[in-house]
């Protein structure tokens, strides 16, 4: 008891090595199971195991793609490069991908501890902040999702940048500034959601760095030094916005709905800090399927929560300036991901708070500190902190278990919200891959009911039916997908099925679709498809002619030669 009191009173300085060991052990206890987890068929295919360029390892082509390519409408060259290097040295292995994410998280925990020691001193608050960062359930997604490598990687560079910034503030130099600039550029190159960090630095200059105390000249200098960082962020922001806009990733809800979403999203993030519930992989935007607005009571109570916290922070200004600054930094860091400009179909994601939560953790630690009045309260606060951390750790363990594979993670999402079509659809994908076609089709049907305008459900249902040996149903689902969206991705599988499967063969229709696909994209794959449909129509001479064109390309797969031989011997391709 005496030791606790002295530790909390700052008389005993904690042994840094011991604390580092504690963080490592706790992180390992929590996150080691990830090495046995699978890839998730959601975002992971685009980043690694469904991306042939990444899987091919290091080459000029992959390097060029890493620097210029967008994955899920996001420009993250450094993350792309990390996946390419991983595939180059270890191949495509989920265990390695998860291990890398875990190690990056561990590095982030240790860097954060170092940052906290420098920012708020070697005391129990720094320990608590680091502990919360290491084990909080809202951070589970950032570590357990391979696709979220970008988040942990970006945070690594961000923390290095913050450490460099503290060093620069202490001893300003051109070299020191360049170090800050480069770490920030790398952080942006890993994930663009750290756009608003230069504004957060300005707030850090207010507290605890107190850099505006030097009068007007100091004020001007502090502002000017942020300009290059802001320019960098702005350029990155424009690239990101254009990527999202060109791909149609930016959804169009009303202004009022966007304001409501912002308020509710922020309130939920704050509430999840202390009372995390219903955590899952995709929080489907209810405005997608409701009247276009949120339930009024939810908007009202969320606004109340945000106003209450803002007032508390403001009233505490004299006693604890850090409250206001941390709260504003949290809001600033959340700005790019708060879905005021909605991207995609989700209104929030656990991974978005990986960095912003650090500032709420500081608020929590500082808030607990205010309750310490004497030896008795010190014990109570310590107990409260230990119990809180232990409870959060239990929630994290439970939450992590849901990330094992596609089925477990989306089963959880469906259990949380049975009205989530995105969860049903992705669960269907998982079930289909597990050869549980009945479940797959049930989930697709549920998704279709919830989102009648979506065609992805039909494609997944078609693929499930095909794998289950039901081509007639597969054709209907593919046709339905084509009726909703005449995109090449929908046309080609239907054309292939109609020309190769004897149970549903309709070469005339297949030819129409294949011709359209070829005109849109004159690729070797579409030439091969066109040749296949021509052969199905009995036009073998023309099929040979077209297949030869497909084979003239550089990267034509060997199967095309087999197709050519079949067409030369007047045989059509048959796939049952």
């Amino acid at each position, binding site marked *: 008891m005496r030791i606790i009191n002295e530790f909390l009173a700052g008389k005993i300085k904690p042994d840094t090595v011991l604390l580092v060991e504690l963080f490592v052990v706790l992180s390992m206890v929590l996150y080691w199971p990830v090495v046995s987890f699978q890839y998730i068929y959601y975002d992971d295919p685009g980043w690694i195991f469904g991306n042939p360029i990444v899987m091919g390892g290091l080459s000029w082509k992959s390097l060029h793609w890493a620097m210029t390519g967008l994955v899920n409408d996001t420009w993250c060259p450094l993350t792309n490069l990390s996946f390419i290097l991983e595939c180059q040295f270890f191949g495509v292995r989920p265990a390695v991908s998860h291990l890398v994410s875990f190690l990056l998280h561990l590095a982030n925990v240790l860097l954060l501890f170092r940052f906290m020691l420098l920012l708020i001193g070697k005391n129990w608050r720094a320990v608590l902040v680091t502990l919360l960062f290491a084990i909080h359930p809202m951070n589970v997604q950032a570590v357990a999702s391979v696709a979220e490598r970008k988040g942990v990687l970006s945070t690594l560079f961000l923390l290095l940048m913050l450490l460099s910034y503290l060093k620069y503030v202490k001893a300003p130099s051109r070299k020191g500034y360049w170090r800050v600039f480069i770490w920030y550029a790398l952080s942006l190159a890993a994930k663009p959601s750290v756009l608003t960090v230069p504004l957060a630095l300005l707030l850090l200059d207010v507290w605890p760095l107190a850099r505006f105390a030097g009068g007007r000249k100091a004020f001007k200098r502090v502002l000017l030094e942020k300009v290059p960082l802001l320019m960098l962020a702005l350029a990155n922001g424009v690239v990101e916005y254009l990527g999202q806009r060109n791909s*149609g990733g930016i959804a169009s809800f009303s202004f009022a709905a966007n304001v409501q979403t912002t308020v509710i999203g922020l*309130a*939920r993030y*704050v*509430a*999840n800090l*202390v*009372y995390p*519930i*219903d955590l899952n992989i995709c929080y489907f935007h*209810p405005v997608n*399927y*409701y*009247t*276009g607005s949120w*339930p009024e*009571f*939810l908007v009202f*109570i*969320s606004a*109340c*929560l945000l106003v*209450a916290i803002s007032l*508390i922070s403001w*009233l505490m200004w004299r006693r604890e300036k850090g409250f206001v600054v941390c709260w504003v930094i949290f809001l600033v860091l959340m700005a790019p991901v708060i879905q005021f400009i909605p991207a995609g179909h989700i209104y929030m994601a656990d991974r978005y708070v990986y960095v912003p939560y650090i500032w709420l953790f500081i608020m929590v630690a500082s808030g607990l500190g205010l309750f310490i009045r004497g030896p008795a309260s010190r014990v109570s606060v310590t107990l409260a902190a230990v119990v809180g951390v232990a409870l959060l750790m239990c929630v994290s363990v439970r939450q992590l278990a849901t990330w094992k594979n596609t089925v477990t993670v989306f089963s959880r999402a469906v259990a949380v*919200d*049975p*009205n*989530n079509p995105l969860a049903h659809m992705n669960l269907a994908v998982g079930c289909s891959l597990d050869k549980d076609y009945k479940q797959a089709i049930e989930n697709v*049907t549920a998704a279709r009911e919830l989102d*009648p305008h979506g065609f992805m459900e039909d494609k997944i249902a078609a693929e499930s039916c095909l794998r289950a040996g*039901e081509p007639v149903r597969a054709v*209907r689902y593919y*046709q*339905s997908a*084509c*009726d*909703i*969206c*005449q*995109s*090449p*991705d929908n*046309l080609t599988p239907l054309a292939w099925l109609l020309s190769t499967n004897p149970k549903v063969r309709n070469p*005339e229709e297949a*030819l*129409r679709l294949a*011709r*359209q696909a*070829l*005109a*849109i994209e*004159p690729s070797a794959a579409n030439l091969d498809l*066109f040749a296949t449909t*021509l052969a199905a*129509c*009995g*036009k073998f001479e*023309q099929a040979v*002619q077209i297949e030869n064109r497909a084979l003239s390309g550089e990267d034509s797969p060997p199967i095309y030669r087999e197709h050519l031989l079949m067409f030369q011997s007047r045989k059509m391709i048959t796939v049952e």
Partner: protein
Amino acid sequence: MNISTINCFMSGVAGLALLHSSAAAQSFSAEGILSHRSYIQGTPGEETRYKVTVHVKSPQWLVRVEALDGNGTNGPVSSYAAGQDGEAIYVVSSGSAIEDQPPVEWEGDSQMSAGYVSLNLSRSLPARIGATFICFTFVPNIRDAILTGDKGDCIWYDPVLSKHHVKLDVMTQIHPIQPLFEKTVVWLNDGKIRFEAENLKLMEKPWPPPYNKEYTNAVYTATLTNVYGTLIPLAATLTTFVPDLVADSGTGTLLKEESYSLQISRIIPDCQIAEFRPALPQMTLVTDLRWMDRDPRFHPARVVTNGGPWKVVSMAELADEYDAFLGQHHLRFSEALQTGHLNRVCRQIVVVTIVMLCILMGIVAKRRLS
């Protein structure tokens, strides 16, 4: 088992058709045969024949098409009837049941055991057996709406052009005596292939050369006959063409893709029918597209007929059930949609807010005391 589906849609064409109702009044009934043939790389396939009955009493009209000899089962639809009563276009299509579709639940806790033709399938299939072509031939309002200025909607099956109301350049030759009827219409593709991106936006790319300049997409011809002083189409043909992607580039060969031929065998100069909405068989599954055409957030409303009078949109919006209908379409927040998740979220935020408000009050009270 046969089932019927009725699609009611106030399409752009229909809307314009109503506006053009000032065209000279036509009144006649006619019967004939529609022949349809598809071509595979220019080689003609098997011909399919349909019996066609047309009733026109401007601006109302009714067309019935039935497959002959059982050959017309182009997909699940074997016959259809389309009509306009001044408010909407009704398309009733009948076809084989889709056995593996889930049964449709409807009021009264019972289920319709037959399958159903899905919205998109049934909406597009009538076009594939010549609905627009027949209407274009016989109904001046529709023809006017399709051919406005130098541009025209396509009247053959093209899901992208039809869905996005893409108009192509047209060259028309008007009948010298009867200006209501075009003798020849040629649709010219502007050299672009159109498709949809995943966000359903219309995209376009040039066809491979030399088709990227312009090519003849379709040719329509009609011959007229004089019946008791009124000129009425006696025969019409429509042939569509596609670029030949097999031929060496530069040849610019066009291949026939589809051809329709309509031959009228009987004409009654005065239309005697009064009901222009197609008759609904018992237990018809209705796929109502009228709301969806007005607001894309609606999805096709599937209901089963109850034998009552058919409501026009303005009447339906005033009905007591309209609120429930909006709820079903997720366009009004309903209790049924408030899942446990949202309730739990509400509870969570309420709990945290109360804690924060308590802290806030504590701080305020302490400040006052000090």
